[in-house]
Structure formats: C-alpha cells, structure tokens
C-alpha cells in the first residue's frame, strides 16, 4: 500500500521540481521585468531562471539554450555584473560603470565568457547601432567553448540614465546563429523604453 502511495505521489513531486518553459507569443511584449518592450514576429520560449542569471536578465530560446538564445538585460545599475559571481572569485567580470567606453563595454561582454573558461574568443566587429531610441554599440563575436562547438554572438548595449540595457543573440555557428539573426535585428529595432 505504501509503495502504491509513493508511486502515485512521485510524478507529482517530480512535476513540482521542473520549472516549465513559458511560451512568449508574437506581438509586443515587455522583457526583463518590464524594463523595455520588444515586438517579436514569431513565438519564443522563455527559459526558466537559474542561479547563474542576475535579476535584470531574461532569456528566450527558439530551439533550446544549447543551440540558440536571446538574452535581455534591462536597467542594470552601477556596480553590478552581467553574470552572478562570488565577490572573491579569482576571475571577475568587470563591474558595470556608467562611464564605460564602447571598448570597456565590449571587454565586459568578452570577460563574461573568459571567466567561464572560454579561451578562444574573437571580436569580429564593434559598430554603432540604434537601440532604445539612442546610440548604442553592437559587438559581433565568435567563441569556442571546451566542447569544441563554436558559437557566434551579436550583442547590443546602451547606457541609459546610468543603467545598462543589453540584448544578446548567441547561437551555434552552423545554422542556428544565422537563422535567428533577422529576427534579432527586428527585435533590436523594435525595442523601446517605457514612457516616463
């Protein structure tokens, strides 16, 4: 009898342990705790939060986080980092500062990979881009994680009212990155800050 009860309760317990992906339908929607608005043309899956992500970040995926992701960071204040890290960790992502130069911002993105064990990281370009109604920067890069599956990335950053706003597409170099690029560019172009 005990075994039967346990077997009945087991699926319920396991279901409780799994945080489900949420479907984000096409059409205007807010991201990163309502920090800004984007207008996806297709449906996306919202990746459940995990311990490595900061409170300012939200992540979407089309085919699973191993293959492609779009991350949104909305309004991260001064002195915080784009990755959760221990204060005394040996390798550190630089703290965000509002007076960071374009090069500092690009280095911050690069460091977020380096501290996670990525040695081969190549910046392809750093260019100006329109983002959230003003001038931001766009960093294109590629990197090779230890599993040898190379990925490409495109990261758009802008500092508004001393807070950091980021959108980053990352995908496996063969197919997945290029496949999501047009939608990512549309999302960046559609991004707007809430009216004050």
């Amino acid at each position: 009898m005990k075994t039967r009860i346990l077997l009945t309760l087991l699926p319920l317990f396991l279901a409780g342990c799994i945080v489900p992906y949420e479907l984000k339908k096409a059409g205007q929607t807010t991201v990163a705790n309502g920090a800004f608005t984007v207008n996806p043309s297709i449906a996306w899956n919202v990746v459940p939060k995990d311990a490595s992500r900061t409170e300012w970040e939200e992540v979407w995926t089309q085919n699973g986080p191993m293959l492609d992701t779009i991350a949104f960071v909305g309004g991260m204040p001064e002195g915080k980092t784009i990755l959760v890290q221990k204060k005394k960790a040996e390798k550190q992502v630089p703290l965000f500062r509002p007076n960071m130069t374009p090069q500092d911002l690009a280095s911050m993105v690069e460091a977020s990979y380096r501290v996670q064990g990525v040695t081969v990281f190549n910046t392809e370009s750093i260019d100006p881009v329109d983002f959230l109604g003003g001038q931001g920067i766009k960093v294109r890069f590629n990197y090779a994680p230890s599993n040898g599956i190379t990925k490409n990335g495109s990261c758009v950053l802008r500092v508004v009212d001393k807070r950091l706003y980021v959108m980053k597409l990352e995908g496996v170099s063969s197919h997945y990155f290029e496949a999501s690029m047009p939608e990512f560019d549309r999302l960046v172009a559609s991004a707007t800050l809430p009216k004050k």
Partner: protein
Amino acid sequence: MQPSRRHFLTGVGACACCLASGAGAAVLPTNLEPLIDASYEPVDADERGMWQSCERVEEMIRTSPLRMDAPGLHEYTRGVVERLLGRPAPSLRIYLMRDSSFNAAMYPTGMMIVNTGLMARARNEAQYAAVLGHESGHFFRKHTITNYRSVRRKGAAMAFIGVAAGAAGGGWADAANVINQALMLSVFQFSRVLESEADAFGIMLMARAGYAPNAASLMWEQLIAERKASAEKRNAKYKDKSNSTYSTHPPTEDRMIDLDETAAHLARVSETKNFEGREEWLAATRPYRAMLLEEQVSLNDAGASLYLLENHAQDGWDGVLRYYEGEVFRLRGGEGDDEKAANSYAVATMLPDAPAEAWRNHGYALIKAGKLPEGREALNRYLTMKPDAKDAGIVRFTLNN
C-alpha cells in the same frame, strides 16, 4: 613490456628513503628507468581498451577549434622533447591547445597536449622543458594504466567489502566503512606517488639534456607566487588546492622543495649544465606573445596578471607589457584604476614596440579625462596604424561625435 611492479616499488621505496633526509624535503630518485621504449604496443585487454579510448580523444583534439595553429612553435616544442629524450621521437604527436590554464598532459599512446597557459607562464626553455619532462615521466613510467589498475582493484575490493559486510550484518558495517575509507584515501595517495615519480623522471631527463635542473622548482615557485598575488589583491586567503587528502597531486610547495633539493643533489653528484634558453624561448614564442598575455589578462584576475607581467618584465618593460599592464587596471576598474591604466597606456605609447591598441586605449583614457584634442589625436593614430581594425567602426563614430 608489462608494467613492472618491482620497478615501481623500487622507485617508491627509493623515494620513501629519501623522505627521511630532511625536514619534509626529499631528494627524488634520479635513477628511474623507462618502462617502455619507442616501439611499445599495448599487450593486454586493459591497455588495448585504454589506447582505443585515447585514440578517440586524439581524434577530437585533432579537429578541435581550440588547437593552436603555430607550426614554428610546434616544431620548437618537438625539439625540446627530443632534447629531453636524447633521441628523435617520430611517433610523438604534440598538440598545442588554446587553454589559459597551466597544464600539459601526455597520453599512453604518445599524444602530448600543451596548454597556452603553460607557455604564458614559462620564462625560458628550461622551465618549459621541466613540465614536458614531467609529462614524459608519466608516459615512460606507464602511469595511466598503473593508476587505472589501482583504482579498479581498489574499487572492486570496496564493493566486495561493502556487500560482504551487508550480508554479515551486525557491527560489520562500521568495520567495512573504515576499511573502504582507507582504500579510497589510498587511491589518492597512490596518484600523488605517481606525480612525485613523474617529477623525479622529469628532472632526471632535464639534467641529462643539459637543462638547468632548478628550472622545475622555479616554475612552481612562480606559480605559488602568482596564486598568492591573486589572493592578496582579492583580499582572500591563499589556498593550495593540492593540499588535501583527496588531491591527486602532492602539495605544490612540497613539490617545489623536493625538486629544489633534487636539483641541488644533482649538481653535487654530477656535472650538470645549466642551460636556461631564455633567448631561444623568447624567439619561439614572440609571434604569439600578445595572444598568450591577452588570454591571461582578459581573465580579470588582477593580482595574477600583474605578477605574470612583472615576472616577464624582469629584463625590462617593453610596449607590449606596459599595454597589458594598462589592460589589467582597465578591466579591474577599481578606485584609481582609470588613472593607473591611463598612465600605463601613455608609457606604452612612448615605447617603440607599443601595439596599435595602446594608442586606442590611450585615446579613450584621454577622452575620459576630458582631454578631447589629445584623445582624438591618439584615436586617429590608432586608425592610421590599423585602418582595418575590428572596432574601427565604433572608433570612427567616437571621432565623429
């Protein structure tokens, strides 16, 4: 040739004898013989299985995007290993890998992996040879298969003891736990013995090849100093991860002392040459120097990076080292670091070998400090030196706004 238990125990015994020689310091055995020769093939099922696994790993490494494309450095590394062995090694396959951690490895099939993290830290050829000699020790003393068999034998014994104690019931479970714990600890202990033996074999090869044998202990001394510098800048306590019962390697400081004692012993009992190969090392690594430093500095471990740069600057600072010093401060971004970074970039641009990036960062630092005309001039200089720079788009935008 079978792994010789007698040979191994002789080595361990010699090592144990030497342990009695001083306050924790030991002269490692310097008469170890290789257990295999160049034509060695696996002889039993264990080894054949292990070789097949190694071949699969090698296939992945051969096609890995982390593999460094550096034919000159590859041939140089082969030359160092062949000098250590005292003969050509046509069956040896060397893979230089982009990995910022301090490491190298040698597989029983004759595949050697050398990380860029090792190259970034070595000051001369002798230090490089010290690590490659150690790895050769693992190969020639058949450590991979020896350790595998030890783990498997002890694992089987632990399983048997656990089952037997369970069947017997009563108070036997406690006794089984005690025995199994001892067996588990002995697995780590045995691994540490093998590491010491590889140290011994490596320093022996170095001495025979005419390298300065004290380069091995100096390499460890530098590594300890680097980790201490890292901890100090983070207000953290230095901790040697090898200083644990569960470590597969002996405590780093013990290794350093033992290698130092052994180098001194070798100098006493034989005529050692003291070839360091500083110039040879600099010539071989020069094309990759910026990349090697970049890999370390971009980890943003300020204490470790500054130590590394200062260690390389023992013979004097140049433009490349000063530029990376600025990068350390810029990435750390603490109080006063903007000024320190600006100063390093400014000094770098006054040196003849400053990279173009030093001018870019000098320009941004000047703009941050409110010196716009000077900043613009430095950024223009950067674009003149590197018109097709990856970040030329944003630099031109900065200049136009």
